[in-house]
């Protein structure tokens, strides 16, 4: 019983500064409320904006990661015509022979698919549309982890024979066939009749989405569309996609391919590459950095409002010290040391900002959840943001309360007692 009482007294002693801080805050309700509001807005903004930034980041990442981080894409380089740069892929420098050389000479390749694509008119019944037609090998499906909604992907046999068969992207199927099943039906690509063998599941709006394309065997494509040739007689392709068997070798493989293609294309040392190699990992990194920068920028904007809130706290604490000069004198006469006074005012400002911080966390999380619930944007809340916000709010109180508290503690007791 006695020990319990002693412990209670210990707790009371610990709570005492918080209690005095509370009484003085409660004395000026409106003023304290407005001061706290500044911190609430700052902290809520930090939390809401950070969760928006991180939500966007996570969303982009998950969509790209869906492609697989072990993918590498090779596209032809840029044409230079009279000093005008064409876009990537405008040059006709990448060939089927390049693809075969890569497959034969480069290690760690799990799958490889050259593509030769062109925009063609697709017609089925009385529906028609313009879409990208991708001529490639069956490995393409494995490379991009394409899922089949119905039917089957065309086979190696189809590829060898140059069968006139097509896989349709989800949107293409919807446009041409509506809700009917197209498997086994015939349609036209350009002037050629093809048979639909399957439909792909929708991947949504991701990088290189096949939803809006038709995929046919490369050999069939070569019969249907005239394939350009380079000056050395090699057959031009639109891109080469490949998947590495060991993700840790991604950089090595990229480098090996670069050397191989440079030598095959007879590029002089120091000349620019006439092709570009992009790995999904590199794209992911670049996007991650970009969205990270955005998150940082949003947080910085929010931090400014927090700074303004902090200045508000300092202002109020200075006023409060001035108003309570006489009180400080009385406390000193009663034997308060400088650190007692200092501690009391510092506790008070920390109490103000911590209260603001906690309310700010609630408001910020609420805003974030609401935005997500209303599908305005994707947000991602994580405990570290919340802990950070609370710690920062406490830090703001200590930082901006330091000077007013120090001022208070240094007051001369006699002058303070005489203050009217």
């Amino acid at each position, binding site marked *: 019983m006695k020990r319990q009482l002693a412990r209670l*007294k210990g707790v009371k002693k610990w709570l005492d500064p918080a209690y005095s801080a509370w*009484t003085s805050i409660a004395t000026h309700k409106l003023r304290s409320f407005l001061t706290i509001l500044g911190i609430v807005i700052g902290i809520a903004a930090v939390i809401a904006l950070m969760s928006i930034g991180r939500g966007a980041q996570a969303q982009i990442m998950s969509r790209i990661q869906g492609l697989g981080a072990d993918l590498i894409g090779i596209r032809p380089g840029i044409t230079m015509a009279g000093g005008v740069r064409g876009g990537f892929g405008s040059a006709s420098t990448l060939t089927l022979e390049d693809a075969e050389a890569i497959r034969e000479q480069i290690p760690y390749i799990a799958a490889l698919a050259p593509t030769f694509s062109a925009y063609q008119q697709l017609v089925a019944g009385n529906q028609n549309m313009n879409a990208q037609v991708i001529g490639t090998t069956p490995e393409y499906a494995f490379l991009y982890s394409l899922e089949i909604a119905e039917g089957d992907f065309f086979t190696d046999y189809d590829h060898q024979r140059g069968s006139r068969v097509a896989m349709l992207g989800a949107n293409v199927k919807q446009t041409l066939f509506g809700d009917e099943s197209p498997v086994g039906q015939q349609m036209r690509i350009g002037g050629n009749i093809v048979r639909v063998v399957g439909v792909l599941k929708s991947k949504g709006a991701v990088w290189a989405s096949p939803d809006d394309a038709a995929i046919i065997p490369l050999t069939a494509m070569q019969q249907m569309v005239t394939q350009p040739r380079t000056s050395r007689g090699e057959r031009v392709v639109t891109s080469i996609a490949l998947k590495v068997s060991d993700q840790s070798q991604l950089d090595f493989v990229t480098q090996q391919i670069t050397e191989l293609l440079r030598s095959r294309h007879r590029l002089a040392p120091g000349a620019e590459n006439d092709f570009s190699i992009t790995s999904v990992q590199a794209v992911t990194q670049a996007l991650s950095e970009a969205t990270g920068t955005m998150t940082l920028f949003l947080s910085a904007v929010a931090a400014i409002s927090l700074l303004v809130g902090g200045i508000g706290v300092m202002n109020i604490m200075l006023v409060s010290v001035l108003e309570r000069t006489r009180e400080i004198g009385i406390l000193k*006469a*009663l034997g308060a*040391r*400088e650190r007692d006074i200092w501690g009391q005012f510092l506790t008070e400002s920390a109490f103000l900002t911590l209260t603001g911080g906690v309310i700010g966390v609630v408001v910020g999380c609420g805003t974030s959840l609401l935005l997500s619930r209303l599908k305005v944007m994707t947000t991602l809340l994580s405990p570290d943001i919340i802990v950070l916000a609370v710690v920062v709010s406490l830090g703001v109180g200590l930082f901006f309360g330091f000077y007013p508290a120090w001022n208070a503690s240094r007051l001369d007791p*006699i002058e303070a*007692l005489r203050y009217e």
Partner: protein
Amino acid sequence: MIKLQQITKTYTLGKRDLQVLKGVDLSVEQGELLAIMGPSGSGKTTLLNIIGCLDRPTTGSYYLDGKEVSSLSSGELAAIRAKKIGFVFQTFNLLPRLSALANVELGLKYAGIDDRDLAMEALRRVGLADRANHRPTELSGGEQQRVAIARALVKRPPVILADEPTGNLDSKSGEEILSLLTELHREQGITLLMITHDPDVALRCQRIIRLRDGLVVSEERT
């Protein structure tokens, strides 16, 4: 208990030096009841502030309880005030946002004592047990001064310093406060130093010293 030797105090006001105390010698025995009188500007309050360790003398030595305190740091002086000195002011100086009881508890806080019962007992002693939860604004002047006395007395300091404790009160309340102070002095053997303008008040003390222009000009026993 209190021994002052050649205490001087000089304030610098702008470029002018103002010597408020010009060499005060004073000895006060333990348990003594002493009145300090003198016209305004004679240095009474400055003297009381130095005795109360709120201020340091410019020159001279001050022994409190046998210990030289004139050269202590502000933190050490605060510790002495917390344990050994109780102040009673003319304007009461209670904290307006705290209850009477909480005000009295403040007197214990810096002495390192945490005991609400003691505070309540002190309030009872000054006859305000039933007003413990009232704010100072809800109390009369006399009642406020009684709370202030309870606050000064609650930590049982050897010395209580009162600066015109009845100066802001009507004569009836003033008389009550005075009776309370003299009673406490008698009961608890406290050394009580009191500044006053009122000769009748001074006559109730054991000894009267008079200050004029920063010097003790007369000393009489009643």
